[in-house]
């Protein structure tokens, strides 16, 4: 087995209490040793990591849409995982709203086969809660777990009845699977397309109040208490939802939550400017108002938020080039996440880099119960090398994703990705950073 030493650089590994200058020795696909002045034998390849770069456990995006099978014109497992590693992610968990829905072992196995062929980021499929994501009867969850699913969700189709959610939470306790909920009370959301507030009102866009999200979060947290099940609140956007999560945690409910970069960076002001009715600011949940955005930042800072996930939602150019109310919800996020976290959270002083590693690596690995989140000796050598001071200009045209639907095109941000290692293998190297591999 080949050995590689990452020499120099700042190791940020909160799971092992490390933050400082360390060498990382990789032996094959595992981490062999982390320490100062690690001795090397003759056959070991030494990679000098320029000072200023950060070595951390591989980032895990626990909320992405890879679109395969069924919507390969938007994204495939291959292009989605290429996008992931370019964004510094060594693993992604993919949502089941494919066509057919990932509600059976056949689809799960198909996704895993495609991931093995692509051989880039690790892919953890998430199965459906209900058969066909129809919200009527439970999917074969034991079978999904057996096939490799790490959680269940009806993402995109919130679980409408409290009874089905109760059963899902009860049933999954047997398999230690979290139920990930896209919280949205459907009758309150109605045919809304944007956050209910001044901007939607002025533009004549139908509104979705924050309460459409928080009402269902409160229901699910209460049901998690009732059942001792594990609920994870996906892409939280409203300040009321964050309060609900805090309430649940205080009561000891088994609840965690995630926030997307766009919900801690953007607000509904984007609906009108700089590009009025830009379908790349149409997502679900919608961009909310400043008080909500600031609440998300506060939750990230005070620890109420467990995870940052992108809700990477690729859509084809043709699908987004339509009237605002006809466009599909969602934006791509894998290749902008790290830069937005550095620029808006670390350099602006909201949180430390170690906390970012918790949000993007340690906590997702813990919640999904998957390897990673740590540079412990013997752990898989899934490593992200980040460049905190790299000047990045976001270019949608140069993204590895098959889709280009981002509101961040042209943004100048400080901080980016230098290289990504999966199983000890360099699967991405940023040509703008000088690392000699």
């Amino acid at each position, binding site marked *: 087995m080949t050995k590689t030493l990452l020499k120099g650089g700042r190791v940020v590994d909160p799971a092992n209490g490390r933050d400082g200058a360390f060498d990382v020795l990789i032996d094959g696909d595992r981490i062999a040793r982390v320490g100062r002045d690690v001795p090397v034998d003759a056959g070991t390849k030494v990679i000098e990591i320029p000072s200023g770069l950060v070595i951390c456990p591989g980032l895990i995006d626990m909320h992405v849409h890879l679109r395969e099978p069924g919507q390969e014109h938007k994204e495939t497992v291959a292009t989605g995982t290429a996008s992931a590693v370019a964004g510094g992610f060594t693993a992604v968990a993919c949502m089941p709203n494919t066509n057919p829905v990932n509600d059976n072992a056949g689809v799960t196995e198909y996704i895993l086969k495609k991931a093995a062929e692509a051989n880039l980021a690790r892919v953890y499929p998430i199965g459906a809660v209900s058969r066909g994501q129809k919200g009527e009867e439970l999917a074969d969850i034991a079978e999904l777990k057996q096939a490799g699913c790490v959680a269940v969700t009806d993402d995109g189709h919130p679980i409408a009845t409290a009874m089905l959610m109760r059963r899902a939470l009860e049933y999954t306790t047997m398999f230690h699977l979290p139920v990930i909920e896209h919280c949205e009370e459907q009758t309150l959301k*109605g045919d809304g397309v944007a956050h*209910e*507030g*001044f*901007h*939607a*009102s*002025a*533009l*004549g*866009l*139908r*509104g979705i*109040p924050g309460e459409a999200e928080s009402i269902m979060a409160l229901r699910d947290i209460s049901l998690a208490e009732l059942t001792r099940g594990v609920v994870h609140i996906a892409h939280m956007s409203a300040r009321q939802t964050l309060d609900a999560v805090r309430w649940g945690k205080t009561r000891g409910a088994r609840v965690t939550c995630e926030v997307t970069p766009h919900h801690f960076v953007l607000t509904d002001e984007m609906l009108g400017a700089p*590009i*009025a*009715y830009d379908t790349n600011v149409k997502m679900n949940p919608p961009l909310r108002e400043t008080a909500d955005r600031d609440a998300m930042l506060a939750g990230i800072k005070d620890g109420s938020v467990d995870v940052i996930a992108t809700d990477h939602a690729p859509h084809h150019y*043709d699908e987004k*080039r*339509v*009237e*605002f*109310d*006809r466009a599909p919800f969602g934006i791509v996020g894998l290749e902008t996440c790290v830069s937005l976290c550095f620029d808006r959270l670390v350099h602006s002083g909201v949180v430390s880099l170690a906390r970012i590693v918790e949000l993007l690596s340690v906590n997702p690995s813990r919640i999904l119960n998957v390897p990673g989140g740590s540079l412990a000796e013997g752990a898989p050598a899934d490593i992200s090398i980040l460049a905190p001071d790299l000047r990045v200009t976001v270019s949608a045209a140069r993204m590895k994703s098959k889709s280009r639907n981002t509101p961040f095109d042209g943004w100048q941000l400080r901080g980016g990705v230098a290289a990504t290692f999966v199983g000890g293998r360099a699967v991405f190297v940023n040509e703008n950073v000088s690392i000699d591999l």
Partner: protein
Amino acid sequence: MNKDLLGIGDLTRDEIYAILDTAEAMREIGQRAIKKVPTLRGKTIVNLFYEPSTRTRTSFEIAEKRLSADTLNIAAAQSSVLKGETLADTALTIEAMQPDMIVLRHASSGAGHLLSRICRSRIINAGDGTHEHPTQALLDAFTIREHKKRIEGLKVTIVGDLLHSRVLRSNAILLTALGAHVWICGPSTLVPAGIDRLGVRVSTIVDEAVADADVIMMLRIQQERMHGAFLPSLREYFVTFGMTAARVARAKPDVIIMHPGPMNRGVEIASEVADGPYSVILEQVANGVAVRMAVLYMLGGGQDGD
């Protein structure tokens, strides 16, 4: 002037007044024996209507013909939509035939903005979803100014379905920009969130809203609003918000009553008011042609009309 007229926000105060002043001259053309001037001769204007519309489409078409433009009406809802063509592709297809202006009516808010980004032609918004209907607000301002000789300082009360009205948004923006005190009034289920940030006073008490008003503008109530539980019944709406002679009596003695049409008699407005001495509803229709001529002239014939 901007390339397009998508909303009142595209116009400065001076441009609004310039349109109103030009409309005065345009109205005179309509009173001649031969109602036609060569101003837009050789210009092609496409009226692209994705929603059924009689009054706005007819008004634009007459305005275009009086200015000698070549006009083409496309009722898109009956043609390309059924074949699955997108709005962008329909617009580009029309563009390929080199029109100078496209007048667009569409059920989606912001449809004109989409066209504006992909078309070279000037886009005039003839009503987009629940967003704006700028030429309606301009003709309303023209009508108000004709009666009151000013707009600044007037109390204008707009009553009806505020949530779904593009006429409301355009009028609120235009009239507040010109210094009117705009009150908007309707059932609390139909008040758009945060709309007071447009600089308007929001009330759900019609008697308070119309008190001492110089202008009362009614908005249409649509039958289907009962389905979203916005209203219990049209009968209850009329009792609570309908414009009756008794309510009109609370306004200034020289109040004018406006309605963009089409009216629901006995729902938002009593016939005695619609047909009464204060009503300027048919004048609005007449002024619509003059104001649209002014807009077409200033966008299409003014600067590059040679």
